[in-house]
């Protein structure tokens, strides 16, 4: 599989990273180089295996359904680029 400029721009949009046309064009051969290399995985017969979802077999622990954390609003907001009245602020979303 290979990408073209339009695909690169679409992927960048999905990843929410702004790239201009020049950057998108530069990325095409870079990404195609890498994608061409990873193509070789298609050679492997994987019909008999499941995808690996757990690296080391483990069970997902459960805990009691009680509140044992939180109540630290100021710490949570301490690194906010912009905040007001105990909220994170962002550009207006509602049209």
């Amino acid at each position: 599989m290979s990408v073209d400029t339009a695909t690169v721009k679409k992927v960048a949009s999905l990843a929410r990273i702004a790239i201009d046309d020049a950057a998108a064009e530069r990325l095409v051969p870079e990404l195609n180089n890498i994608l061409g290399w990873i193509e070789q995985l298609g050679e492997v017969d994987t019909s008999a295996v499941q995808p690996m979802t757990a690296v080391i077999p483990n069970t997902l622990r459960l805990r009691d359904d009680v509140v044992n954390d939180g109540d630290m609003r100021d710490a949570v907001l301490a690194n906010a680029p912009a905040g007001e009245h105990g909220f994170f602020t962002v550009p207006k979303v509602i049209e």
Partner: protein
Amino acid sequence: MSDITDLGVAALRDGIRSGAFSAREVADAFIVRVSQARQLNAFIVETPEHALAAAKEADTARAAGETLKPLAGVPIGMKDLFCTKGVQTTAASHMLEGFKPEYESTVSQKLWDAGAGMLGKLNLDQFAMGSSNETSYFGNVISPWRRKDGGNAALAPGGSSGGSSSAISARLCPAATGTDTGGSIRQPAAFTGISGIKPTYGRCSRWGVVAFASSLDQAGPMARDVRDCAIMLEAMAGFDAKDATSLKLDVPKWEDGLNPDLRGKKIGIPKEYRVDGMPSEIEVLWQQGIDWLKDAGAEIVEVSLPHTKYALPAYYIIAPAEASSNLARYDGVRYGQRDLPEGANLQEMYAATRAAGFGPEVQRRILIGTYVLSAGFYDAYYTQAQKVRTLIAQDFEKAWAQCDLLLTPTAPSAAFALGEKSADPLAMYLNDVFTVPSSLAGIPAMSVPGGLDAGGLPLGLQIIGKPLDEQGVLNAGLAIEQRAGFTARPEQWW
């Protein structure tokens, strides 16, 4: 005492305990050395006050006749991927420049609880993505090693834990934390002639470690010898309820269990690790390692790990895919940099913030990851890579029927010059060829220095073990260390 900085973790710990020197003397000596080595760019932030506070606590405790903590008064470096409360944590990225966590990572907290002090936050490849420490927003780290051809080409310290490897080999700290996702502890250790171990996945908590690829990331120690790695790993490891993948197991006494007698052990030599174009010096070192392990009493067997060559491409699908998910959190809303162009809406804020905050390699990997996870490609790429991952893990499981440990080179070359490979991402990725398979399988692996190449640069040997057999890995590492007699050190040019 200028030779205090030549001492390793065990010697410093024991010397402070016995009163041979004070923790204050130790902290002072390393603080001075750190301040004189800024040319290496190993540290992003220096924190002498933290090291001095730990030293004071150790000296006070000793004067009061108390039992000292396991690492009382030992100053270390902390890779700038671990959140340290109140101290800038950047992941070497502009995105987190100025970010001061409101909490401490589990692994760093365990080290402070053990009495260690922090000399500073160590530079690394940005978001742990890289093999040469050339992707940091805060500039390249320079290896203290130079080729003996008389030239002064700046060499790569390896990556992503390049600040850690550079600092330890330059004697700026006796040990440091690293993280290893595809080789980022082991390869820099090999490049700089030090030791480093990536434990079994789940041994060390990932809570508070800036996430790159969650199914691969593992914290681990880097130090100048195997004993020091064992001491550090004991302090760093352990169950953490805040990490869902943390193993609920007691931490073994790895230091006490060190035993370089390998009689009864079988060491597998995987034939697929003999790659085309591998420098003959690496072949020679590998054979040397085999001879050393035989001398230690081990039996050598040739084994096959048939899917080895697919490990790197599988990794470069899985790791970027997980990275694209993990780095989605950097959106300029709650922490980190925000870029808000005039009149921008929320989506434009995200896009501008992320374009400005992430370096080129990080962006490249996020884009690859996004692409392989996107609709229409998910099965062909990501699912296929996950299946290949199962096959790679099965290769190791089958090998354990014939051997207890594996011996391989750590890296396909000695350290290269900065700039030599940065033009081609693919050439850079090939550095990880020997380290990635054990990362994908989640099994423990360590690099120990084996010797020098013709250019006078360190070469490392890698020992890979069964899940949870860090002791076996450390023991084989110690057997090699005792026979390799590696005493080479970089000549100070800074």
